[in-house]
């Protein structure tokens, strides 16, 4: 704050120099590296991007819905349920996501075909594919991390507000629906943006179980073209743009929240 004494129309001189250096670097990368493969892969890249985005959206949505009861029972009990929720959060947060993914895909995936009831059920066409395992793992992971946030958010709602609601004669369910949950979500929103970006950064792992997201597409390009850096640089750029867009979206919503 104290640096912005005078705000001139032009950026600081060193920033202009750094921007020029960055521009030179980008030009060098664009001209001297090999990009002739790019036009042939645009469709696959778009498909991969789409798959990454809906994996992200669905896992965040389902994960958040699951995080609400996970956080709530840790605050209200009953004790066995709250211990169960705590155990779940500790288990997921204490082991690497890659291991969970491989456990579900290779572990359950090797057991399911041996159970005839599952082979004959309507679920089988889905369970033979990889993406349900990817979505399930990502959802559980997001639920565990966000459940921890929601636990703090539920616990942080001032007791007086809940007592006031009860004094108005609201039933426990009404208190939860009208006061507790909205106030808790309000408190959790600022961290949500960061969590969603962390989730975006977790999605490329699904490529290791043959779900062709944007990372998977780029891996394929690398195998096809024998190029090491160019596809990876493109991938890094794509993720940076996605993270930037997500940051802007959440900043927009945060600004619209009433601040007291």
């Amino acid at each position: 704050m104290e640096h912005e004494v005078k705000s001139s129309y032009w950026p600081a001189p060193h920033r202009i120099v750094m921007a020029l250096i960055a521009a030179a670097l980008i030009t060098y990368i664009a001209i001297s590296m090999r990009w002739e493969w790019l036009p042939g892969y645009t469709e696959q890249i778009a498909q991969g991007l789409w798959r990454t985005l809906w994996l992200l959206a669905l896992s965040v949505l389902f994960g958040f819905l699951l995080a609400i009861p996970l956080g709530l029972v840790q605050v209200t009990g009953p004790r066995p349920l709250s211990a169960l929720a705590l155990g779940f959060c500790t288990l997921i947060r204490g082991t690497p996501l890659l291991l969970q993914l491989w456990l579900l895909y290779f572990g359950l995936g090797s057991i399911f075909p041996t159970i005839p009831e599952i082979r004959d059920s309507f679920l089988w066409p889905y369970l033979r594919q990889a993406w349900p395992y990817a979505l399930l793992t990502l959802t559980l992971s997001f639920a565990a991390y966000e459940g921890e946030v929601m636990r703090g958010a539920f616990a942080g709602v001032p007791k007086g507000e809940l007592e006031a609601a009860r004094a108005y004669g609201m039933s426990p369910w009404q208190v939860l629906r009208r006061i507790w949950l909205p106030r808790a979500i309000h408190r959790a929103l600022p961290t949500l943006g960061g969590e969603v970006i962390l989730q975006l950064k977790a999605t490329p792992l699904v490529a290791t179980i043959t779900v062709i997201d944007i990372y998977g597409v780029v891996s394929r390009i690398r195998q096809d073209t024998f190029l090491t850096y160019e596809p990876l640089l493109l991938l890094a750029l794509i993720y940076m743009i996605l993270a930037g867009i997500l940051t802007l979206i959440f900043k927009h919503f945060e600004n619209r929240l009433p601040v007291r």
Partner: protein
Amino acid sequence: MESLSVLQSNLALLALSPPGWGGNLLRGLLHSLEIAFGGYSLGLLIGIAGACGKLYGGPVTRDLLATYTTCVRAIPELVLILLLYYAGTDLVNQLMTSMGRPTVDISGLAAGIFVIAVVQGAYATEVIRGAIKSVPAGQLEASRAYGMGGFQSLRRITLPAMLPYAIPGLANLWLIATKDTALLAVVGFSELTLETRQAAGSTKHYLLFYCAAGVLYLLVTLISQQLIRMIEKHARRGLPQES
């Protein structure tokens, strides 16, 4: 009875010496811990330097550090690992050939530590910067009034006084470091996750080995959390209790 014998034969697969795979898993765990510890320590140094640069450095240093932390925190670790793993080894070899020396094989361990350190450094920079900023200004003014120079007051006052504020964030980073090592399995470094995958693949007992590895990771986390709690208690002594 039948299930009991199945369980026994399964547990035999986890035996420490071959034909059991337990030894491989433990060796993998050791590799994981080596990388996590090395990467974390190096990342901490980067973090301290980065935080000092962001707080006390000139405008150019600050902008460069902002670029570093922004990029690392926006790009998935897996992509960074691939980029740095190939680029890092490539650069070293180009340097060696340009100096007229034969190319070297970078050990996976060194590359892994370097990659984890770069990632950890970006997050540690932010954690330490926040912690330094929450040291009460009066304490620094007092140290200056005693005639301490910039470096002296950093070493004697700022760094020790910021610890209680930094420890929760740094503890989180340690837990992230232990789990990030699993990503090195993708570039073929034989840490715990890759050893597990190989053991599971060759015995076809997928669930058993993945669960065993999960237990090992979980043990590392839980033991770390206990240690962190003790360290935090020690660092917070003399501070007003807040809950």
